[in-house]
């Protein structure tokens, strides 16, 4: 594609879109599809056709609109209502209400309040186009700005310019650890070697997190564009997207996007008539959490068991097939195009001193509004839980919030007022993580939660290093004993000692962070542990007294 063709494609599509009087967008991501949103699209299309409105009404499948717990979501025109909990039976009424700016009165009970904090307090950068366009339609994506940033980079900027923009923006890796993205890029750019690779880590293994799935399903071209810009900056010509096999729709959309981009020469050789070549392929994960670790991921792409290896050398110097490799997370790549388009200064004006921009979170668990939110760094956790999340349902009290998945920790009510950034979360014993946020109410027992995560780490440990392989097994055994009421204070002391050992001696991030859920629950909710031990001891004391009595009788019988 030539540079001017991109603008033409966008313009043509915009005119086409403007030609419609109405536009109905139905969420077509995994969550809503499981609640039959595909049938809603079909029924709306039937109704539109039956009424002969094909030229007036545009019906499209769109990306996630955020409030996944109330899905399927249907959005009608800008400024018109958005409907929630829609079923295929509502299709006709939706079409009937198109002309009224307040929607069909029959569907009043389904109207979703767009003024509620859940929407108002968000700031959409990565998800700005999700829900507004058809992710499977390249022209529609281009009309919403796709590949504009790539064009700018290839025609106006040198690789060094790009890296300095990303560095100046203050962007940090969204996969969890928060490593400065610009620094990573410049390390790969400086590494020697003719062949370099870029990898997109879409192995979103944290249970309770689905931000990356949504970005891949709702705006796949954004991910490709980010990867292409990164490849140009570091000097790579081939990219790999590693997606977990549990996300078939993401794989389908990405495959389609790659094919479209190749066909229109937005990927391939001589992109925009420059000398820049870039191709992308998808590799499927196969259900191993450890493959989210970069060296394990590389091993998996190479067709091996996903075993991590010691670093250094870092992938930036020796990665895929021994070549310098840049690995970033889906959301990180999703942030690149807006930074290039709007400038580093704009991006760094959002957020806190050390954490810039926005972060997407999946808020789930015992909370009213479950779904995806994109919020500026620096927002308080209290705002997330009680304003965006709408608080705890059923009149229960907030107990804890878990961030960072099995590598993260639990945050207590005491710390809800901290401002969200990488450092503040680390200070209270948790991590930013990839963005899963699971809220628990007073009915959740924190020992059970810690045991749940330890069971996860134990089964997901790859077995290469002893501290993780054996340590997680032992810690799980101890947690199980305590939870089942067989634990003692000695067990608790041993558990603490093991946490320290596993944390400090494991080979990779999985083992090093496996004790985090235990440590953070011990720190904030030690009473849960002590109560269980106390109750167990009391029960045993009663039992012992009984068995001592029984034992005495038996002994007497033997003697007699």
């Amino acid at each position, binding site marked *: 594609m030539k540079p001017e063709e991109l603008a033409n494609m966008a313009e043509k599509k915009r005119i086409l879109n403007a030609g419609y009087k109405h536009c109905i967008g139905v969420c077509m991501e*995994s*969550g809503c*599809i*499981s*609640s039959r949103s595909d049938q809603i699209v079909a029924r709306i299309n039937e109704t539109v056709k039956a009424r002969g409105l094909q030229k007036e009404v545009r019906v499209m499948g769109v990306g996630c609109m955020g409030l*996944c*717990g109330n*899905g399927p979501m249907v959005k009608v025109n800008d400024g018109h209502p958005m409907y929630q909990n829609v079923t295929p039976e509502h299709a006709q009424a939706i079409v009937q209400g198109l002309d009224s700016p307040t929607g069909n009165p029959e569907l009043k009970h389904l109207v979703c309040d767009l003024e509620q904090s859940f929407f108002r307090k968000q700031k959409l950068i990565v998800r700005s186009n999700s829900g507004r366009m058809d992710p499977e339609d390249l022209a529609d994506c281009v009309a919403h700005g796709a590949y504009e940033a790539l064009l700018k980079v290839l025609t106006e900027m040198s690789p060094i310019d790009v890296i300095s923009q990303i560095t100046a923006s203050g962007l940090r890796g969204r996969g969890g650890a928060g490593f400065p993205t610009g620094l990573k890029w410049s390390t790969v750019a400086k590494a020697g070697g003719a062949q370099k690779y870029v990898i997109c880590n879409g192995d*979103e*293994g*944290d*249970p*309770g*997190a*689905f931000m990356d*799935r949504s970005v891949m399903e709702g705006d796949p071209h954004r991910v490709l564009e980010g990867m292409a810009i990164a490849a140009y900056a570091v000097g790579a010509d081939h990219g790999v997207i590693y997606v977990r*096999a*549990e*996300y078939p729709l993401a794989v389908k959309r990405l495959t389609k996007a790659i094919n479209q981009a190749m066909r229109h020469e937005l990927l391939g050789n001589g992109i925009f008539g420059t000398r820049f070549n870039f191709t992308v392929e998808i*590799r*499927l*994960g*196969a*259900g*191993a*959490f450890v493959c989210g670790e970069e060296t394990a991921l590389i091993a*998996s*792409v*190479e*067709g*091996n*068991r*996903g075993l991590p290896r010691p670093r250094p050398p870092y992938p930036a110097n020796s990665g895929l*097939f021994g070549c310098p490799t840049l690995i970033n997370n889906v959301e990180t790549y999703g942030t690149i195009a807006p930074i290039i388009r709007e400038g580093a200064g704009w991006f760094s004006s959002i957020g806190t001193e050390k954490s810039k921009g926005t972060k997407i979170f*999946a808020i*789930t*668990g*015992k909370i009213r509004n*479950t*779904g*995806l939110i994109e919020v500026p760094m620096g927002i308080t956790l209290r705002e997330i839980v009680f304003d965006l999340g709408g608080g705890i349902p059923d009149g229960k009290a907030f107990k804890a919030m*878990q961030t960072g*998945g099995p590598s993260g920790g639990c945050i207590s009510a005491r710390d809800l007022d901290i401002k969200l950034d990488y450092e503040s979360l680390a200070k209270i014993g948790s991590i930013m993580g990839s963005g*899963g946020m*699971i809220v*628990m109410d007073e009915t*959740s027992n924190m020992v059970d*939660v810690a045991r*749940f*995560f330890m069971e*996860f780490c134990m089964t*997901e440990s*790859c077995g290469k290093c002893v501290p993780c392989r054996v340590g997680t097994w032992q810690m799980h055994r101890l947690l199980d004993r305590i939870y089942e009421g067989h634990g003692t204070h000695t067990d608790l002391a041993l558990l603490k000692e093991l946490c320290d050992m596993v944390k400090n001696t494991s080979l990779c991030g999985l083992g090093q962070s496996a004790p985090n859920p235990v440590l953070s629950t011990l720190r904030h909710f030690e009473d849960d542990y002590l109560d269980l031990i106390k109750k167990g001891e009391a029960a045993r004391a009663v039992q012992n007294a009984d068995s001592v009595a029984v034992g005495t009788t038996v002994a007497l019988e033997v003697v007699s």
Partner: protein
Amino acid sequence: MTMTHTLPSAPTEDKRWRIVEATMRRTGFEPSGLIETLHSVQQAMGYLDEPALRWVATSLRVPLSKIYGVATFYHHFTLKPQGRHTCVVCLGTACYIKGSKQLLEQVEKKLGIHDGQTTADGEMSLLVARCIGACGLAPAAVVDGQVQGKSEATMLLDRLDNVMAGKVES
């Protein structure tokens, strides 16, 4: 690869092996295409049996021991045939907090099997997932590829009955 590669013949006459061959060709018969190839075998045949693993080993020129290592390392791959229907209960954090453990127990009780097993009549396989990314709909289960969100035990058990009775198309 400069050498021409003569393919060993597929384990059986079954045409589905051609799909697998196509995958191996796409990845240039490189050992790095192993996981893709295993995905392809499992998708076409339902599981990975020994003749298939041997055939992949010879085709990609990778030791059988390594193939066995990879096939058993990843949870997604199964070396046993699955039932005619499958039920996956998600045990991700959000689902766990919302009672998926109890949901699983009820399903186990109903089917008389544990996760990872198939009923004696070969009708239903029960699996657990680490997180299917449908956390907004917790607790979630997947019956024959269809996600069922906000699963109440009775709803899910009814659905299993219907599926096994052939009332619902799978």
